[in-house]
């Protein structure tokens, strides 16, 4: 249990950073969500090892930490890839066939929304309207935007990020 036994699976530098944040927030009421945000920024996601450090450090039961993490969509229990692919499922994109684009994406990557490819390269997600309805259907890969897509465009786009 605890931070010492965690260091085998979590790099020390990250751990020190997290512990500092916990230290600063330990006795603040309602600080758990903030600490979890910071933890996710440091680690990219919130696996059991990280949640245990937060739970113990903040004096909150692990079950409660897990309850908060699974309640909010922005927290992830799974690692995120180098390239975060967001498929807009807003109304305009949806009627223009965004679900077909998403389906093709899942097929190409062999995983589904919320997961991450084995080599930690791609993690596809669905998102709400990104206010680029003129480009519907639209996806973003990190900062890059691709619009007026058909499912057939997906392989070529992905290829750019595989080198």
């Amino acid at each position, binding site marked *: *249990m605890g931070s010492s*036994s965690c260091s085998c699976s979590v790099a020390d530098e990250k751990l020190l950073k997290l512990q500092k944040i916990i230290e600063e927030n330990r006795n603040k009421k309602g600080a758990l969500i903030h600490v979890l945000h910071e933890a996710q920024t440091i680690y990219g996601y919130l696996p*059991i*090892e990280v*949640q*245990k450090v937060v739970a113990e450090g903040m004096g909150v*039961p*692990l*079950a*409660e*930490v*897990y*309850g908060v993490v*699974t*309640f*909010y*969509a922005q927290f992830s229990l799974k690692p995120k890839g180098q390239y975060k692919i967001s498929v807009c499922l807003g109304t305009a994109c949806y009627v223009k066939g965004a679900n077909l684009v998403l389906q093709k994406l899942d097929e190409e990557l062999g995983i589904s929304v919320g997961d991450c490819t084995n080599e930690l390269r791609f993690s596809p997600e669905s998102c709400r309207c990104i206010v680029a309805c003129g480009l519907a259907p639209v996806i973003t890969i990190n900062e890059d935007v691709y619009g007026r897509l058909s499912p057939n465009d997906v392989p070529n786009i992905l290829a750019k990020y595989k080198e």
Partner: protein
Amino acid sequence: MKMVNITIDGINMQVPEGTTILEAARQANIRIPTLCFLKDINEIGACRMCVVEVKGARALQAACVYPVAEGLEIKTNSDKVRRARKVTLELILSNHDRECLTCVRSNNCELQKLSKELNIRDIRYKGEQTEHDIDDLSLSIVRNNNKCILCRRCVSVCQNVQTVSVLETVNRGFNTKIGTAFDIPLANTPCVNCGQCIAVCPVGAIYEKSDIEKVWDAINDPDKYVVVQTAPAVRVSIGEAFGMPLGSRPTGKMVTALKMLGFDKVFDTDTAADLTIMEEGTELMHRIQNGGKLPLITSCCPGWIKFCEHNYPDFLDNLSTCKSPHEMFGAVLKTYYAKKMNIDPAKMVVVSIMPCTAKKFEAGRPELSAAGYPDVEYVLTTRELAQMIDEAGIDFVNLEDSTFDDPIGEASGAGVIFGATGGVMEAALRTVADILSGESLPVEKIEYTEVRGVEGIKEAQIEVGGKVIRACVAHGLGNAREVLDRIRAGEAEYDFIEIMACPGGCVNGGGQIIQPSEVRSWIDLIVERTKAIYAEDRSMPIRKSHENPYIKKLYDEYYGEPGSEKAHHDLHTTYQQRANYPLDN
């Protein structure tokens, strides 16, 4: 207290300001249905079964959390209210595993009762159903989320009352469920198996791991000598399963029923409670006289022991090394008794009827095996015993009384009061006082009322034989945590502490007959069952453990004296620190 005038269903009444509509309606003999509500434990207005019309309010209001104010006009029985409740209940039922016939809570289910009351004949909503795996890896507790209605009573009792906090509401929306961190099986969490979650569950979503079939098999195996023992608190709850009023103590009927079930011998765990007092009382005097580790903390309660192993490993040396009474009894049966009666201990099966689910886990501890076999093979809850009595077709209420079997059949009143909070402390004081003063104190001096009662933490400075013992009694693990934290912080100092995991002690154990919210929200189960315990104590000819002739005989014939080497081997145990969530699961 400021009184306010309100009108409920046309009845004008005065109630204290801030009373909930639910309680005010009760005073007017108006019943509002509830489902998630459990007084003092879960008052969150989540299920919406108790909705009522409040004049001037935009929507229907949850009566269980709505405080009354001057001039409030309430309708509890309008068409709108009735329809709303029905729709809500149908929606709850639409995602519920409705196999009632085979459900452990059939006939004692708050959801089933409500469906009948609200005349649900069809469930119009045929949507998706969530499917959950059943977690039955724990030796004590099974969780079946397919039966869960998300009332959150279990979460509340686990977090707020017990501060064990292994249950939590996880995920969101339709995927919401009651779970553990990372869906880790209860068996691999710091769950202490107290079973308070079971006692509060309105449906069949949490229940004990049943050992009934194994016990039937043992009884029906001609090669086995099957001995049963019953804990003090079982006798003050078992009658409830057969319609007897709260606070009944049908001890004699229970013994008759156990004999009819086919057990070879029926013994009273109270006898072993007397033995516990001899060992623990001696341990206390030794530690006080020889500068041993203090405070001494009682070790009868396996829920508390596991809680200590997980959360307060620095107190493990404070724990009495005494096994809990039923484990002591098992050890005595398989050593002394087996030899005396010429029975092969390998063929002996010891069954304990307990008000407790944590005892199931305890019986599985490998260190509890004095004769090379488990001291106790199977633990059944009070509910499981009632189930076996039903299964055997026994008419419990009309049974004749019988008495526990000899030669170790007699117990003292001190053994009986183990079932109530403060009881172990009082029983120990009765014996320690006599030993330290060198005389037999009269009846009027042996009732230590300062350690009785339902207050969560009780403290007393008690003079026994010229020594002042600083005593503390805590029941409910939240209260235990508070006491231990105060000791850790150097804010409190005691010589002797009694801790019981369940609020009220064993009378309110997680294995007792389950009373629905409608009963336990308004009648204090702990008070009613405790009264019966103390009445039983007063009815006993012997009130002190060391005056029990069988205990004297046991020491004369076998153990020599309390704390002897032989006694240590058979009757004492060890503890170990436990990780809360071992990483490799």
